[in-house]
């Protein structure tokens, strides 16, 4: 994790991980039937799991941004460092927004094939 370019992409790497995890969980859940049983006030445990995963992913990306902001150390000349700090902040904000936007559907859309 020492190379600054890896820090630039870090937030979106977390987004990609969340994406894979949520999609894989959804497909697995439908395949083994987690969407049918009812638990408590949730219509299906699968939706509950997905919502939890999405929230964890979102928190992880926001945490990444916070961590990146605290880590703004001088890796090179001042100009290069501020450039990299700017870019990684923009990218992280983009990743946060992307997470909120991409996974919003888990709250109400049809989970599994009819």
């Amino acid at each position, binding site marked *: 994790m020492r190379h600054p*370019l890896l820090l630039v992409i870090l937030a979106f790497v977390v987004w990609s991980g969340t994406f894979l995890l949520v999609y894989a969980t959804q497909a697995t859940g*439908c395949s083994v039937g987690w969407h049918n049983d009812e638990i408590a006030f949730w219509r299906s445990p699968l939706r509950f799991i997905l919502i939890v995963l999405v929230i964890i992913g979102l928190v992880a990306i926001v945490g990444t941004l916070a961590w990146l902001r605290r880590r703004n150390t001088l890796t090179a000349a001042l100009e290069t460092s501020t450039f990299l700090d700017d870019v990684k902040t*923009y990218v992280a904000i983009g990743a946060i927004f992307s997470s909120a936007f991409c996974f919003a559907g888990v709250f109400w859309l049809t989970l599994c094939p009819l």
Partner: protein
Amino acid sequence: MTENQSIHHNPIALHKALDRIWGTKPGWGRLAAVNHNVIGVRFMLTALVFFAIGGVLAMLIRTQLASSQSVFMDAETYGQVFTMHGTIMMFLFAIPFFEGMAIYLLPKLLGTRDLAFPRLGAYGYWCYLFGGMILIGALLAGVAPNSGWFMYTPLSSSVYAPGINSDVWLLGITFVEISALSAAVEIIVTIMKIRAPGMSLDRMPIFAWYMLVVATMMLIGFPPLILGSILLEVERAFDLPFFDPTRGGDPLLWQHLFWLFGHPEVYIIFLPAAGAISTILPVLAGTPLAGYRMIVAAIVSMAFLSFGLWVHHMYTVGIPHVALSFFSAASALVAIPTAIQIFAWLATLAHGRPRFSIPMLHIFGFFFVFVIGGLTGVMLAMVPFDWQAHDTHFVVAHLHYVLVGGFIFPMLAMAYYWVPHLTGKQPVQHLSHAAFWMIFIGFNVTFFFMHLTGLRGMPRRIFEYPPEFGWEVLNFVSSMGSFVMAMGFALVALDFILLFKFGRAFRRNPWKAGTLEWAMPTPPPPYNFASIPRIDNRADLLDPDVIGPHLAAGRGYLGIPRDDRMEVLGVNSVTGEPEQLVLLPRQTFLPFWTAVATGSFFLLMLFKFYWATPVALSAVILCFCLWSRSGPSSFDDDAVPIGHGETVPVHIRAESPPSYLAMVLTLVADATLYISLLFGCLFLWISAPNWPPENVQNPNLWLLILAATTMSLGSLGSRISKKSAHMSLVGNGLAFAGYLISTGLFISIAFYSLAPASVHAATASLFVVFCYVTLHGVVGSIFAAHALWRALRDHDMSVRALDLKIGGLWHDYSAASGFGAVGFCLLLDSLVHGGGL
């Protein structure tokens, strides 16, 4: 040194000395060319030939569809024609063309003399040429692929396509993709390591940022396609049922693998073109590019988002709505980074004094066409709209708006902008305007009306349609438009021929650009810069008119050629400070022969001489082993002077040489393939019918663990071998022995301990995973054997340190892949026998 002194500050003498070292030899020596100028131009010219072939096929399609129930082509011919049109335009034109452009331009924009791995570039070119020739040969022989350019199985499987057609696609395209992957590695390493001193990340020309992102996307995007092609070819050739639903396979696996490559591919094609616009447009506007940092952030975000929308090609395959929503939202979101770039360009124009020249005219064409394509793209990203428009001519119109708008028009803009650089001549501009308007009008007539044809219900890929459906007039209009467009392209070709013949010469920097490629003579000499500049500003805000003569006089770095060596500077990837002297390999026939050996492997596979393929594979490996031999051999000094009183070590002794990064990148691509394979097999468990398999015979667990453990001896051995010359023998010997045992074990497990792989996709998955690990063991044993040989022959440790470091990466990865296979086997076993979770 007396000869060198005479060269000093004498541009002509310096040019002659450098030209002798860097130039390509005439005659047969051309096959030994490794110079990026030569390779880049070859890539682009070859791609243009394929473009012309693809264009002719498009004309055939439009002729066929101009009237209902046309008798011009039958269904089979039409199938081959539209499949090859798509295949050629995507794989043999668009990607290789921008690869060629990047190979040609990047070293110049980065202020250096060549790419990091000139031989790899040459090898990539030959692979591309030979692979393309296989496809064209099949087209001429009438056995071209005929299942559509995305080769959906089972239509492309051996049951429904028993001929050689699909094999041509799978093998030919995989062959071509080798060149894409090698180009990706080469581009990333060059941008990271081989720049002009002082060019820190924030001073890189914007085009380098674009290409860095694109090459990384290629590195991750191509392996899934290569994996899919291998699995489908293995199913066709050896009956391993990955896609056969009756034996636990699933046709949807192919679609996922294909589009996991296929959608990023669109951005892989668009981004280099956008990079060219970001380079050209500020020059024509006479002002620096607006929002450099935001653009960099936008393209990085775009790269990631583009991997999160592949399923938008698969809205109708029965995936649940919530899953579609992730991909639909990502597809809509990807419009944001695009909008940021478009408005950064508009801001640049608004703040400059734009000159309306020919490249600007094509940029106008780009804006017009691409914006429409983007808007229809957002429409198609919406699930309900796509349910209606999917697989109709609306989609055909959309994708042509995106690809022609996002690639062809920018490509023409850059052609008019950079051809003076390539030829040293300026255009006469009699035909340029007419050619542009013919292409522009012809294109819009063809494809705008095609949206309507699609909305009226015409599916794609039908070779005839009944007259009463009311599609005839629209189709006829489209066909007429396409002929106007074709004539426009012919005019462009004529325009450039006239330019080559009658163009007038110019002195330097005709566009008043601020980038380094104009700080050299045009046409460029093979070494680009007689000496290498130091950059003290962003690399698109420089003054080539001042820098050029300064460099030509040898006043920059490496201004004195020595010992006939091809020298460039390697820099710190962040700060751009010089940290090593990279010695490049001289001209050699090896890339050509290696590509011939690789091609013979693919041809043997194609014609089903499977028994002979090990010979070809051995030839490939032997050729690659010879590559390492011709490396530089004498390094007497840790501190080589590079000019300006500075000294750096030779790359072999440097902290992070280019080849180390290249190995890391290769393993990233390799790991992507492996992860895709494992995920793909698990996908079958979730999605495919006929699971769990009956009576699966599991491999002996202890045998498997033994195999993986012996394979990790390679990793252990490589650690031991780094300690001393003596330990090197011990360590590499241990590694070699470990590999021999483990490959033997893995191969015997794959062949004898499993049920026959053709019985069920589950056993086929395990079989392929074990074969993958075995292959890594074989390559690892070659690394170990090579290191042993070097240890016996050569006692200078520092020379071998680099080899050991690179080999160590491979050994560690092989060990991980071995244990990964054990874990996968256990997981699959518990899923199958535990009845799930």
